[in-house]
């Protein structure tokens, strides 16, 4: 063993510059990997902490028979906290309020305290949150007497409600806490495991230990998926479903498994890891040819395979032992700095799958918490690196064994060699010589090209995604969240004809500080799609007969369903009809799929814009509508009763207009979603000019008004004036987005900056890597260059030859980069359109970036060759030949 170490050390010292390069490579790879791992891990941790606040600090809840299990320790799981909740009768006949009794553990998990007063101590006391008390008719609060199920109780405390997101879940009632525990009360047993191990596994152990059935188990999904709550069986199920059902496919698998972004993070880390390992391998590989012959000589002196492998491995391992910790230190230090500055950009958020009307803008930006060093990732990285070292050592020894000794010493491992005599054909042999130096074997060339290309491909890929993310964010905000405008006026009313009158909206434009003001005219309509023109019959629950998937009864009541079957293969769909001014129509151009948007032509030719449905995989082909088709739009005549929204009554309530489609877009601007589409599902929309709205349907009022400010500083004053101007208008809400927009912009620009930064680092590393390998290739051939010079090659000739060779090297690697990147781009584009549902992503990276990267590669190759050539020329010929 001592001998092995001594020999390994000797080799490391002998190949000093290679050792240094390899050491640096390991440090860089470790820094990138551990730093990125730490950032992503910290983000996850922060996400988990945020989820804890929103969903409660528990993982599983045992119900029914299982609830009275003792929460004692057992093998394979460790319980950190438990809480018990007992639910009693419903209160005063309301299904959504129940009597409850909870232990301290439960209250602690749900962050429930008495804000005022105290929790019930006597049998006639109750405590509840403010909303529940109000629902029950309490007016004063503390000390008040309330009648509950026929008995009198005194309000002794006002508590916090359930955690925000937990409270939104449908089957959870509001609770009125009492101090009586009845045996008829339903028991719930909440468990929080120790999070250092995957909670799913612990739950499995608990279940098998106590012989519990999974049916009696509820999971805190919001938190569990961030702390290892995903069951492997479910992963398998997801794969099965995704692969067997055509309409689901890859987007479904990815979307489901990546619900919390874990998969995407895994892919990022894997990419970085592979990049690092390829870099280390290729750094090692360049020193190989010299070493191979060295080892072969050792073999003739009686070194066994095992000994050789041991020396090789020890060499690498010692470098790793020194380099890996240094890298982790550097990486974590950098990550710490980054995280403390812009940590929140790493906090996982489910922003990708929202399709409209959702609350990205409304939710506060997440709290980043502190940077946590990700020991898991570092340990995993060190294990992976060791494994790679073992693999390299084994591979090399095998390679040495396969080739005969003489071949080895002759530094030639290529079997098939050209037998051509080049000088018969051409007068210059230097090109051939150089080519054979640079690309000695096909496999070697392919390997080094691949390792050189990976960095650039990673860079290009992340630039491509980042470009499109930025574009998608802008477009999404404008369309879905109204963030395209600084301020918005909206109508909150369930009636289709509650609008802001034209007079009022025109008055708004005169308020000082407002630079522009776009009132969107709106009405509800219905379109009948006949003879199979509507294809997604499974899009609406009211068209299917699923027990566990039903349309909201409220919607059924008010509209008679968003979609109604009107005949064999015919369906009537409720649609939104918008009237835009010309400037908004121009902005809608960003979302154009087909056709042209020309307001004058629309007014002249009676044409409109159609916005189709989008499904969860980014498909838009739900209804068979193409340019030139005529839509028969049924609208409600003014002053009809609200029941007209069912589109069932007497035809005298409605107008019918035939309009043809001149453009198809992916999104409406300033969307109205409080009539249909309230639940976040997508709707079909028809968009036209304001004038058309008036002409066809006599609609002049608007449901949304988008306001842009001259500058965002005096938004407060403008807001007050807008409110004043709208005073008395029915259902009018004014929202000031200026602050959110500023915050959002900062958040996004930080995120973009980071991704550009990381990709730039990777690109930089890969350029250094190219330089190093090329430099090494050239200096390792000094002897041969010496011979060429002795044979009469001039300095200029040598320089020319190397520059040419550098260019060739650069061109080849650029070609490899381009080909690899195009494949990656195709994949990314698919993911962006069908999984992340980006709006109108560019299908191709900007040529400027692509060509800059390729040009940079070629330029670096040429530059390095020329510089290396210079150092070759500085050395005396004799010295070189003797090498």
């Amino acid at each position, binding site marked *: 063993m001592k001998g092995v170490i001594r020999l390994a050390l000797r080799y490391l010292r002998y190949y000093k510059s290679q050792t240094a390069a390899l050491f640096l490579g390991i440090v860089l790879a470790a820094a990138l990997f551990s730093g990125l791992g730490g950032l992503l891990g910290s983000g996850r941790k922060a996400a988990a902490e945020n989820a804890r606040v929103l969903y409660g600090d528990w993982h599983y809840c045992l119900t029914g028979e299982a609830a009275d299990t003792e929460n004692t320790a057992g093998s394979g799981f460790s319980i950190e906290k438990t809480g018990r909740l007992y639910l009693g009768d419903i209160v005063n006949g309301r299904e959504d309020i129940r009597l409850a009794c909870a232990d301290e553990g439960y209250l602690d998990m749900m962050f429930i305290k008495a804000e005022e007063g105290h929790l019930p101590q006597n049998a006639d006391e109750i405590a509840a949150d403010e909303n529940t008390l109000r629902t029950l008719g309490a007016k004063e609060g503390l000390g008040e007497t309330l009648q509950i199920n026929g008995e009198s109780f005194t309000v002794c405390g006002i508590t916090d409600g359930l955690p925000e997101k937990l409270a939104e879940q449908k089957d959870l009632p509001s609770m009125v806490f009492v101090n009586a525990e009845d045996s008829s009360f339903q028991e719930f047993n909440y468990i929080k495991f120790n999070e250092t191990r995957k909670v799913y596994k612990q739950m499995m152990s608990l279940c098998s230990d106590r012989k519990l059935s999974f049916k009696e188990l509820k999971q805190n999904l919001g938190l569990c998926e961030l702390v290892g709550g995903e069951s492997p069986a479910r992963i398998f199920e997801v794969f099965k479903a995704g692969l067997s059902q055509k309409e689901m496919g890859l987007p479904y698998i990815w979307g489901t498994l990546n619900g919390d972004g874990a998969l995407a993070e895994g892919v990022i880390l894997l990419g970085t890891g592979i990049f690092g390992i390829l870099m280390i391998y290729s750094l090692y590989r360049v020193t190989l040819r010299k070493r191979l012959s060295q080892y072969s000589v050792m073999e003739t002196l009686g070194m066994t395979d095992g000994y050789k492998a041991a020396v090789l491995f020890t060499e690498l391992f010692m470098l790793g032992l020194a380099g890996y910790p240094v890298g982790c230190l550097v990486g974590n230090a950098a990550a710490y700095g980054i995280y403390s500055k812009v940590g929140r950009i790493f906090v996982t958020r489910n922003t990708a799958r929202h399709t409209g009307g959702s609350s990205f803008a409304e939710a506060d930006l997440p709290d980043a918490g502190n940077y946590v060093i990700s020991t898991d990732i570092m340990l995993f990285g060190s294990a992976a690196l060791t494994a790679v070292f073992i693999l390299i050592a084994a591979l090399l020894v095998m390679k040495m064994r396969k080739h005969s000794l003489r071949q080895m010493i002759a*530094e030639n491992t290529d079997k098939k060699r050209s037998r051509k005599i080049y*000088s018969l054909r051409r007068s210059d*042999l*230097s090109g051939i010589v150089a080519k054979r130096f640079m690309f000695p074997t096909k496999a070697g060339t392919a390997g080094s090209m691949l390792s050189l290309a990976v960095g650039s491909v990673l860079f290009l890929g992340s630039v491509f995604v980042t470009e499109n993310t930025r574009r998608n964010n802008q477009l999404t905000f404008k369309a879905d969240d109204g963030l395209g405008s600084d301020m918005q006026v909206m109508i909150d009313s369930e009636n289709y004809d509650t609008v802001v009158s034209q007079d009022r909206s025109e008055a708004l434009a005169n308020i000082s500080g407002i630079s522009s003001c776009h009132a969107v005219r709106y009405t509800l309509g219905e379109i009948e799609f006949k003879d199979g023109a509507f294809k997604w019959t499974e899009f609406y629950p009211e068209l299917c007969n699923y027990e566990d998937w039903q349309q909201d009864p409220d919607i059924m009541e008010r509209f008679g369903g968003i979609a109604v079957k009107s005949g064999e293969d015919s369906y009537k769909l409720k649609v939104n009809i918008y009237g835009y001014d010309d400037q908004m129509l121009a902005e809608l151009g960003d979302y154009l799929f087909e056709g042209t948007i020309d307001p004058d032509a629309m007014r002249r030719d009676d044409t409109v814009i159609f916005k189709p449905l989008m499904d969860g995989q980014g498909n838009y082909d739900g209804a068979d509508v193409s340019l030139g088709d005529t839509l028969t739009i049924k609208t409600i005549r003014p002053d009809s009763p609200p029941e007209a929204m069912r589109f069932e009554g007497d035809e005298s309530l409605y107008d019918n207009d035939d309009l043809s489609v001149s453009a198809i877009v992916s999104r409406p601007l300033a969307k109205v979603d409080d009539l249909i589409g309230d639940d976040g599902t997508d709707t079909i929309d028809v968009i036209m000019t304001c004038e058309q709205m008036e002409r066809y349907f006599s609609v002049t009022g608007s449901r949304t008004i988008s306001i842009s400010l001259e500058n965002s500083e005096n938004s407060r004053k403008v807001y007050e004036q807008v409110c004043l101007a709208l005073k008395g208008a029915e259902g009018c809400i004014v929202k000031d987005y200026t602050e959110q927009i500023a915050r959002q912009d900062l958040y996004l620009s930080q995120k973009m900056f980071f991704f550009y930064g990381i990709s730039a680092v990777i690109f930089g590393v890969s350029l250094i890597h190219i330089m190093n390998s090329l430099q090494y290739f050239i200096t390792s051939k000094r002897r*041969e260059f010496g*011979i060429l010079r*002795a*044979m009469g090659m001039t300095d200029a000739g040598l320089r020319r030859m190397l520059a040419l060779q550098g260019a060739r090297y650069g061109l080849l690697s650029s070609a490899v980069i381009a080909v690899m990147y195009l494949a990656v781009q195709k994949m990314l584009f698919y993911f962006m359109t069908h999984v992340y549902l980006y709006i109108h992503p560019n299908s191709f990276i900007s040529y400027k970036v692509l060509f800059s990267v390729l040009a940079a590669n070629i330029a670096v190759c040429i530059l390095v060759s020329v510089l290396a050539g210079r150092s070759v020329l500085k050395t005396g010929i004799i010295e070189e030949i003797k090498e």
Partner: protein
Amino acid sequence: MTVLQVSNVSRDYGEKNNIVHALQDISFSAAQGEFIAIVGTSGSGKSTLLNLVGGLDTPDKGSIIIRERELSGLSRKELTIFRRRNIGFVFQDYSLMPVLNVYDNTVLPVTFDKGSYVDHSFIEQLLKELGLWDKRTRYPNELSGGQQQRVALARALAAKPAIILADEPTGNLDSRNAVEVMGLLKNSVKKFGQTILMVTHNESLAQTCDRILHIEDGRLLPERSGE
């Protein structure tokens, strides 16, 4: 006619304390068509001398004049071009290009000269005479030491240089082959009027040359005339 004039040449290696006087105050001249053997013990300075004459290295003192051109007066580029037109090298360790086959190795120096074209019939004849013709598509590592040595020799002769500097060109050959190679060299000298400086450890081969230069410890021993 004097082709080569070496005057008071010295060459030292290393720094102050462990300085090696590889060559000290060497002077001699060689006429066109002369076949000169250089002998001496190992480490006496023979290879150093050839390197200096070939312009691969520069002397610390003294001058070397070949065909009336003083080498130290030439620029790097001039020297390179002068060398490839006038001097053929056979290195002690052959120094073949591993990535070229026998034929291409042989013509390599000629291809550097843009003006001259490769005389393929001459190369064919040369390779045949050296017994390398049927090995012309092999690579150096597929040849024996002796074969490689003959390729190095072929390469030195390919451009028909005025001076051939050969460092033990027969060191790896059996006596029969050695004699054949000597014959080839002598023929070449006669045919093209070349001058040869050949290092050898083989006393009997040296005896067949026109002159013998003895080097010991970097100094030229006085020539015994009349041999």
